């Protein structure tokens, strides 16, 4: 066996930090907010999670690509991350069920990446300095120029990205079940769809900017507000109008991640950018009433400000055991609840899938009260 020919690649951070490594994936230059994920498995699910749209993903687990790439691990129709940083890329893989090796997958999806970088050093760097933008290039060798480029890269703050990843047309996923759920796609993950459909939902997934009227034409029994990328405050500009109308229907509303943040914003709570986001599959979240802890998948760079939560309007139902951030809300003035983390997991533990059950029971309950009326 001969060793693979190595091509140099550079990663340059906006604060001037530069690291050299080996090019992986597609040839070219890419940039975005540099974030890291501490999941040790499930790399492909992460790459295709629309919430990561436009971000440079640094995996903290060193060996990435071990089991290749397989269509069943996609969480959306394409790779959403803007670039990839790893420590020890697996050029070869082992998995009879995979479609290809990860490098070919990255090339097919036009993803520029870099391997052989001291990722731990960079994680510690952004952990102490805060998130920042960066640029990866396999073609440009002038580090200064790349740092300049990273500096000029558009900031995540104030950025509206949900419209970049949402479906262009509404799509129906039928199950033959007895109730109908309207999901607004700000960047919905496939496993959310799977979880809802598995529980008997006839699901219609609407593009982010669909009007309330159009959604209501489908006569939904419940509403789901999905996860998605970007600054929730920017998405709120167009989303809140529809959401407020949805709230007034009295039908159950469930929000995950960006959906959760939008629901909070719709109640007048504030959502702000975190110093370093939560991205991994090992975050402990405490369910305050039950006293139980769920190990959760997390991916967010913005969070609801705890002080802004008005007790008359909502109750904090879940908190993060590590830093006490708000992880879940139950709204008092409309039939809604939401979580900051990802009960659909993928990748990550399945501890929180009960939330989908809860949504379904709320719908059933609402329907039965309705029929009594």
């Amino acid at each position, binding site marked *: 066996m001969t060793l693979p020919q190595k091509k140099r690649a550079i990663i340059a951070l906006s604060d001037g930090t530069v690291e050299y490594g080996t090019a992986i994936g597609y040839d070219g230059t890419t940039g975005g907010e540099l974030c890291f994920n501490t999941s040790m498995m*499930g790399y492909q699910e992460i790459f295709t999670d629309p919430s990561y749209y436009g971000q440079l993903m640094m995996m903290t687990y060193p060996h990435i690509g071990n089991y290749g790439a397989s269509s069943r691990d996609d969480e959306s129709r394409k790779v959403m991350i803007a670039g990839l940083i790893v420590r020890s890329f697996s050029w070869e893989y082992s998995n009879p069920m995979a479609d290809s090796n990860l490098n070919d997958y990255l090339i097919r999806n036009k993803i520029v990446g870099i391997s052989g970088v001291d990722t*731990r050093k960079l*994680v510690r760097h952004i952990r102490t300095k805060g998130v920042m933008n960066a640029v990866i290039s396999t073609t440009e060798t002038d580090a200064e120029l790349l740092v300049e480029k990273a500096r000029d890269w558009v900031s995540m703050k104030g950025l509206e990205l949900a419209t970049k990843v949402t479906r262009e047309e509404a799509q129906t996923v039928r199950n033959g079940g007895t109730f109908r759920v309207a999901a607004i796609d700000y960047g919905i993950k496939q496993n959310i769809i799977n979880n809802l459909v598995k529980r008997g939902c006839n699901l219609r997934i609407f593009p982010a900017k669909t009007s309330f009227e159009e959604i209501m034409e489908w006569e939904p029994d419940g509403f789901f507000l999905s996860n998605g990328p970007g600054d929730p405050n920017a998405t709120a500009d167009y989303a809140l109008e529809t959401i407020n109308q949805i709230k007034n229907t009295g039908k159950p509303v469930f929000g995950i991640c960006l959906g959760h943040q939008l629901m909070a914003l719709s109640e007048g709570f504030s959502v702000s950018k975190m110093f370093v986001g939560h991205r991994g599959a090992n975050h402990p979240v405490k369910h305050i009433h039950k006293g139980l802890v769920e190990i959760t998948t997390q991916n967010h760079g913005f969070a609801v400000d705890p002080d802004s939560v008005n007790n008359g309007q909502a109750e904090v139902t879940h908190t993060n*055991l590590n830093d006490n951030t708000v992880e879940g809300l139950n709204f008092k003035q409309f039939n809604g609840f939401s979580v900051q983390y990802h009960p659909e997991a993928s990748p990550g533990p399945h501890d929180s899938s009960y939330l989908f059950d809860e949504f379904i029971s709320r719908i059933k309950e609402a329907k039965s009260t309705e029929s009594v009326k």
Partner: protein
Amino acid sequence: MPRRDDIHKILIIGSGPIIIGQACEFDYSGSQSCRSLKEEGYEVVLINSNPATIMTDPMMADKVYLKPLTTESIKEIVEIEKPDAVLPTMGGQTGLNLARDLQHEGFWRKNNIQIIGVDIAAIDITEDRQQFRDLMEEIGIDQCKSRTANSLLDAKEIVLELGGLPVVIRPSFTMGGMGGGIVWTEEQMEKKVLRGLELSPIHEVLIEESIFGWKEFELELLRDDNENVVIICGIENMDPMGVHTGDSVTVAPTQTLSDKQYQALRDAAIKMMRSIGTFAGGCNVQFAYEPGSDRFVAIEINPRVSRSSALASKATGYPIAKVATKLAVGYTLDELKNQITGTTSACFEPSIDYVVVKVPRWNFDKFPGVDEELTTQMKAVGEVMSIGRNFPEALNKAWQSLEIGRAGLGADGYEEINRKDVRERLLKPYWDRSLQVRNAFKLGASVEEVADITKIDPWFLQQIRYMVSLENRTEGQALGSITRDEMYELKQAGFSDFQIAFLVSKSGEDVTEDDVRNHRKELGLLPSFKLVDTCAAEFPAETPYYYSAYEGETESDVSDRKKVMILGSGPNRIGQGIEFDYSCVHAVMATKEMGYEAIMVNCNPETVSTDFDIADKLYFEPVFWERVLDIFEHEKPEGVILQVGGQTALKLAKKFHEAGIKIFGTSFEMMDLAEDRGRFSALLKEINIPFPQYGTAFTAEDAFKIANRIKYPVLIRPSYVLGGQGMRIAVKEDELLRYVDSILKTHPENEFLIDKFLENAIEVDVDSTYDGDELHINGIMQHIEPAGVHSGDSTAVIPPYTLSDKVIDIIKDYQLRMAKAMNILGFLNVQYAVQGENVYVLEANPRATRTIPFLAKATGVPGSAVGTKVMLGAKLKEFDLESKLDCYAVKEPIFPFDKFPEVKKELGPEMKSTGETIYFMKDFNDEHFKKPFEFKNLYLSK
């Protein structure tokens, strides 16, 4: 829920002597548990018969009972202590079994003692194959498919149903699984089924689907009273099903599972743990995954801490035993902090950003005729763990840690390999499988070919093949022509300077390890030291637990305090086990008490010394010259302590000495002299101390001449060995020649010694400490077995029971004269042979010995700590050295012959025991004395 206050006094059951399958990992979990309970203000009562454990130290529990691990002992203790609760999960299978037996007797209930940390019903389920099977079926966890047959015809049909051979045959209701096993051919199958039908009292056999070659995984779980469950670590066995986990190379985290596959295991593990009862504590679950599919089956579940949980703790930094103990006394996971970060919650699943490899250590060389094939019964006596930023680095480091004379996975000058041998060696799993995989690639085999033979997942094979490609690229290059990038890649893949030197020397130039070191330093390549932090750097962590990697950033800041580096004893093996880790731990604590920052280097995951809160700084690294020197150069301590880590540490003394590094305690010259029979004998002669006649030989001819001069029987051994490795007694010429021949093969570089063997002599073992002015005798131990049986295999009694006062005075006098003559500072052990009133010196060891912990437990004087402090400048008069022993203490060896039924039980100068127990007796009318005394000559081989 916070700590329970309905219980106050807790009994912990230890695991007893070290045996194969149950080693010092239970001292690690037991001492964590003791400390954890004391921290919470509970009164701790402990029973363990193993004197070489840290957990039995007086500071660990309020009351320590060094008693045989029997239900009788426990009943006696309960009578006196009246504990409120018993924690049986820290003492391995021994602890669990004792608790279970007493439960079935109704003893705990009768005495109002609560069992915490486990549910006895859970143990009953997990120990009973059928109950376990039924339960798994009930909760929908897949298992191997099977059906019972009552005839050969039935059996044939079932085999077809199961998809053909191989299958496993299990005759119903036979003792110990008699007549069972895997069958590969039609013929074997017919034979085994017919035989099984005959053997079975109900003429029935179970035909079970074979999962031989499936991928094997283990998950380590913790659960609290609120039903919160976390998975601390997933471990993948590189060796697939068919080899016992304890004998497998294992890797953390899992490498070849997708998230969907891993989460399916996680879900199943949690379901399984919940199904066996509602206890708060630790648990281990094993699974097998069918390669290339999503199908997996449950193998077993162990509701206790284990060897794997010790490994998982060291691999992730998460102290499983400590947390399991807190959970057992009522805390819930969310109430506890992650001790490594100090700020985040203990209720989480560690994420690691490095690769951990565990490689077992075997001792087949001690047991001629042993079946070396690895099977489902564990044969390893110890293990090493290594941490790297990638798998190749961790694997090479593991081989550097093993101390079998290797400098990594091959590429160090040992093999002459050929295709046929390698292929044959790969057909069955043997101890050197990873090396043979490397050899196969070196010979040009393909990944597919090796995967087909070994069933090892191709990902691991690809990684090893990558290592071989690096070898090939380097081989024959001139050192100066290796670029920085190439060197960096080699170092990142864990190649040692020694391996690189070997590879470049193939070009004809003579390159040494030092040359490579200098060259790479010129290229600016030094290792970085990274932190083990449980969270992949997501949160800051303060616990000083480090490993090396060739990377951009070093996280181990060097303090301005005065420091001492202490080298650990590496993997457990026969001759060097937990006794040395005991001394290491005491040396670390003594060093701290003397005002130094104590830096520990060790690679044995089972040990207390590698617990992250023992030393001021822990480097989990091979005790291998290059790695140790790298740490030394980074930390720049005042010097090193080598006398507590057994031969592992000691054999690096020469290198430290040559590098001009200070070795605390007795000088290198004197340590060296003690190993050099010629110079040592000259010294004895000078101070007029008798010793058996001897000679030093390099060839068979020399040996022959010497033996004729000093007369048979003679004792033959290579110099510089511990535990009597390769030592034999020859009564006649042909035996002598045979032994010499084998020594020349195994130790070609060494000279060897021929000693006059003193027949029917009493052997006496004396440990002492000398501070330059004063000698303290830690203890004089008389062996029950005659000289000729290795001291580690002998039953030793303190105080001596037949030696005259005169002999004892002579011994004390010799000991003092030797200490003075050798300028001892710290430990001095001397072994004597006594014939009548004549006392001969057999050997002297200026280091902490195997018996130091036994003596500490027998006399109540902490000998290891005192010795270390003396090495660092303290005087003996500062300590209370009075023995508290008011009866006889007996050290009884424990042998692994039950694990090797094919090996004849015989004892000689080569050590074979794996562990020991301590027993206190009032007089000699005691079975523990009478029995060994009666059999003292029985097993002596010549």
